[in-house]
């Protein structure tokens, strides 16, 4: 059995009397992408802060690459990459200078800054100061910075936030490539499409607790219901019908509609991760 890249057991953190993380447990294997989903204040950022050595856990235990995060091991931090939600770049320095500076903190003598910038489509802006970059370009810089030390574990907080669809798709491809080379990825996102597309497994976190953890497919099977949405011509207007597939009760009606001249469109419907989250927690992901 492959040793987990991230292993979390009963992890807790309290801000004074407020318990932000209430004993969560999960593992992330090398090459796996775990989507970490939850609304603001659910405990996602606090968990990532503990796992990246920024906060000492109040209780429980966690290891990253075998290193105890509580001791804030420099060796662990040398092998992780972090993409923060806030664009915390040195804006008076160029893209290349930013990467070279961070590479020097990892002890990398001749970093391939140009190569990393090429991966995120910023090679032609390598010598430009970051303050001249658009929001999307800064986001791509954040991704490139997380890659500069060729990490074994990536913590990505909203990595495609603010990107146009084409660039976002390119970044998702890059993240998938990292996972394919064996990097464990903890991905925090509000984008359900992104989570569904990228994540091998998804953890729903709410109120400091993990309320569900499984593959997107299993979650949909466990908490969703299959149905077919049918649109029919009805006089001068259009009428919709939803037919459940799970109990077989709509088989006859489906067969009837399939040959009906009134039939306009017929689509299968499945539960989205957002619907499942709402079903589990009674609240949306955006809040």
């Amino acid at each position, binding site marked *: 059995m492959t040793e987990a890249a991230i292993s979390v057991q009963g992890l807790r953190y309290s801000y004074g009397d407020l318990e932000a993380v209430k004993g969560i447990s999960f593992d992330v294997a090398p090459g796996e992408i775990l989507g970490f989903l939850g609304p603001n204040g659910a405990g996602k950022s606090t968990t990532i802060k503990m796992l*990246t*050595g*920024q906060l000492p856990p109040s209780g429980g235990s966690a290891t990253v690459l075998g290193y105890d995060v509580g001791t*804030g091991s*420099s*060796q662990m*931090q*040398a*092998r*992780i990459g*972090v993409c*923060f939600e*806030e664009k*915390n*770049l*040195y*804006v*008076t*320095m160029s893209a290349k*200078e930013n990467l070279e*500076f*961070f590479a*020097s*903190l*990892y*002890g*990398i003598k001749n970093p391939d800054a140009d190569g990393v910038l090429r991966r995120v489509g910023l090679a032609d802006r390598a010598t430009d*100061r970051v303050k001249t970059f658009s929001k999307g370009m800064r986001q791509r810089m954040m991704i490139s*910075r997380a890659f500069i*030390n*060729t990490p*074994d574990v990536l913590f990505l907080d909203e990595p495609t936030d603010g990107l146009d669809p084409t660039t976002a798709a390119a970044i998702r491809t890059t993240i998938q490539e990292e996972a394919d080379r064996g990097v464990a990825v903890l991905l925090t996102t509000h984008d359900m499409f992104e989570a569904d597309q990228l994540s091998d497994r998804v953890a729903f976190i709410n109120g400091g607790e993990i309320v569900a953890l499984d593959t997107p497919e299993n979650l949909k099977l466990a908490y969703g219901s299959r149905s077919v949405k049918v649109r029919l011509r009805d006089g001068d207007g259009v009428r919709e019908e939803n037919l459940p597939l799970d109990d077989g009760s709509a088989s006859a009606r489906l067969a009837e509609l399939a040959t009906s001249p009134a039939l306009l469109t017929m689509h299968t419907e499945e539960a989205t991760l957002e619907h499942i989250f709402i079903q589990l927690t009674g609240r949306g992901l955006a809040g």
Partner: protein
Amino acid sequence: MNRRVSRPAIVASIVRKDFTEFSRDLLYIFLSVLGLVLFAVTYYLVPDTVDETLTVGVHQTGLDELFDQLDASEADGLALVQYAGGDELAAAVHDGDVMVGLAFPEGFLEAATAGEQPTVTVYSDAAVPPEVTGAVQSMVREIAYALTGHGLPVTEPAEESIVLGIDRAGDQTSMRDLMLPMLVFFILMIETFALSSLIANEVLNRTVTAVLVTPARVSDFLTAKTIYGTLLTGGQAVLLLLVLQAFTLGNLGILLATVLLGAVMFTGIGMIAGSAGKDFFSTLFLTMAFVLPLMIPTFSVLFPGTAAGWVQAMPSYPIIDTLNEVLTYGAGWSDVVGSLGAALAWVTVIFVIGLLVLRRKVRSL
């Protein structure tokens, strides 16, 4: 991939990055260069000599012999300039050609010897200290007694002048020399703004958070900021002292030690202001709020003997006092050891507070 990176290498990287950021900030580059040039120019524009001669303008008729004798006998410290008319004399005083003017009326000699009270007009510019005018008025009375052939109405006591400390008669400290410690202190202060701004940016933009998820520790960050702040402020001060040719073999060690203490003190202040700043203007305001009161003791250097007890109790006083003693009066280690000790104590307190405040801020992000 396992890599090992030494703590000094991490600190050096952060310091290099800080100087790169500083070099990209045109405002602080401008302020640094302006401060250096302005202070150097000011220093060289201020006179480096002190005129100890009292120049008195005189308008008189029939007293030539007396004033020739006075001019000859009081060659040291008194210069007499004769004017043909009262209006000319008044204009000369007004223009600053002479400090004080004495206009003796026609027939002064006859009137004085006859026991009358002739009126002598004393002209003085508004800027002339009243004690100088008073001394000249006393001189007029002595001249009157001399002309009438009488002695003074009192017996002159025997006088023995004892000057405590260095007798600077004929060797007064010039305004240029007096200003030097103040200029050095000001240049130390100026760079505090650049440091506090840099720290505030690190905290507000949370770039420090990105640094601290690498192998860099909080202690590396604090060490780097200490080195950067000390090099920035101390370097500027040393540069100014070099430009002003203030270093000698005798004072080199003391001056470097004093500048180092000043630089560390302002680094601590920069850390406090930078940690507390919410934006550019609040950081600027906070830095000024800490730094401006520390300027007060510098004025005691310009006006020796004026430092009140509370001024001497200020953290900046021992540093300014040491700079003054060394730069102005050529003091050695043994003369300033007390001031240096007090400076070290204050610097330690301020710097430790700065470190603790910044560490707390960074850990709270």
